[in-house]
């Protein structure tokens, strides 16, 4: 059970907080300590940046053979979503009929249980993506 490791990333998983480089403007998710575009010029210039949670589906699959940890959810949709602000995430798509998913479909982040470290362990929460509701 790696409690501190997953705790450190809570703000990223709960609130899609990534980084924005004050030197070159590049935005990234998850947070980084070094901008991949301008590297050493970015030292000390990376700021937290909360993404809106809006994005579009770039590609997806329906996972039928899932790891034991995801047995209850299988089959589930896994997708790469491009956030409106630019970065991409690998995430599950929920509350949408898989047969209706199309490339470019707009989706919005929601808050779901991602897993747990066993029945007596910490529960991990974070983003999945679903239909835009408003």
């Amino acid at each position, binding site marked *: 059970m790696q409690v501190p490791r997953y705790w450190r990333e809570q*703000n990223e998983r*709960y*609130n899609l907080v990534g980084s924005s480089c004050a030197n070159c403007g590049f935005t990234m998710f998850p947070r980084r300590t070094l901008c991949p575009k301008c590297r050493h010029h970015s030292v000390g210039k990376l700021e937290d940046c909360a993404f809106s949670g809006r994005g579009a589906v770039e590609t997806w699959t329906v996972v039928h053979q899932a790891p034991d940890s995801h047995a*209850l959810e299988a089959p589930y949709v896994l997708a790469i979503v491009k956030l409106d602000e630019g970065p991409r995430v690998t995430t599950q798509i*929920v509350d949408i009929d898989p047969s209706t998913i199309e490339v470019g479909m707009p989706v919005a982040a929601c808050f*779901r*249980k991602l897993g747990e470290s*066993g029945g007596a362990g910490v529960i991990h*929460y974070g983003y999945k993506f679903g239909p835009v*509701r408003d």
Partner: protein
Amino acid sequence: MVGIVSYGARIPRYRITTDEIARVWGKQELAMGRSLNVAEKSVPGPDEDTTTLSVEAARQAIARSPHAADTIGAIYVGSESHVYAVKPTATIVAAALGAPPFLTAADFEFACKAGTAAIQACMGMVGSGLVRTGIAIGADTSQGAPGDALEYSASAGAAAFQIGTDNVIAEIGHTISFTTDTPDFWRREGERYPTHAARFTGEPAYYRHTLSCGAALLEKAGTQPADYDFAVFHQPNGKFPTRAASKLGFEPKQCETGLLAPRIGNTYSGAVLLGLCAVLDIARPGARIFVTGYGSGAGSDAFDITVTEQISTYQRSAPTVEDLIDDRVVIDYATYAKYRGKIVTAEVAP
């Protein structure tokens, strides 16, 4: 003026019908759905729980509120299905809202009235000036023992209210509570399912507290049932609230909007709060709302609420409670049992 400045709701999409539950337990002939006046109930998916429902409801409240998360000084989550026995749901909600750490938080438990108790606590914190706004959440993913009467109605849902003194959309003019030590329904630490005392949950429990408290609220507020546009009661099924309303002198029409149990079951700590959200979704300025909750153990909290002019400028954006109720996917008992962890599975190595 202390009252509601914003609200939000979340009901999971899955539904199971009372007919389907009856089919599995050989009770098709007993017309369970009709006798309870519950046609189907909401079921949380495998990645949903009291925490996720609380967060989604609270996020909707903050998204449409004039008071951002940094005004929150208190967060209370009331539930009887908190995901941890020790470690509060409220702190996860706080983190997921991006609320700054200088706030107070705690989880409440009082069967189905933990949410209304949270509202009262926020009223105190806000009214005394200790905090600027407080978040009160009632949320549950309640379980009924397989085959038990409660299995037909125990469902899942959450509602969140932001309580404050500025830009109030619904003023809470009066609140009163009635509390006794009455063991009508309980769950011991470590037990998977609750136990109830059957017919003892009626007269000495639900009705005694709802009616005593409701009558006391009318007296304190100096009102008659006819003065209210809407009445919301705790709804363990679709029958009890109708009977209580009638006994207090309310008409069925006043109770319609806030009675959700027939379509989503009993969302426990979320029930009265969701009923109130449904009313606020359509209420006009000046509307008066009578709310009396009930929690086993036992107690009732009642509120006399008046909708203000401010509601005209408040964005009651989608999804509304009706939108959430209509967004439904019906599942069978096997899927329901799988999602609710009622099937004994092999131990998974961590």
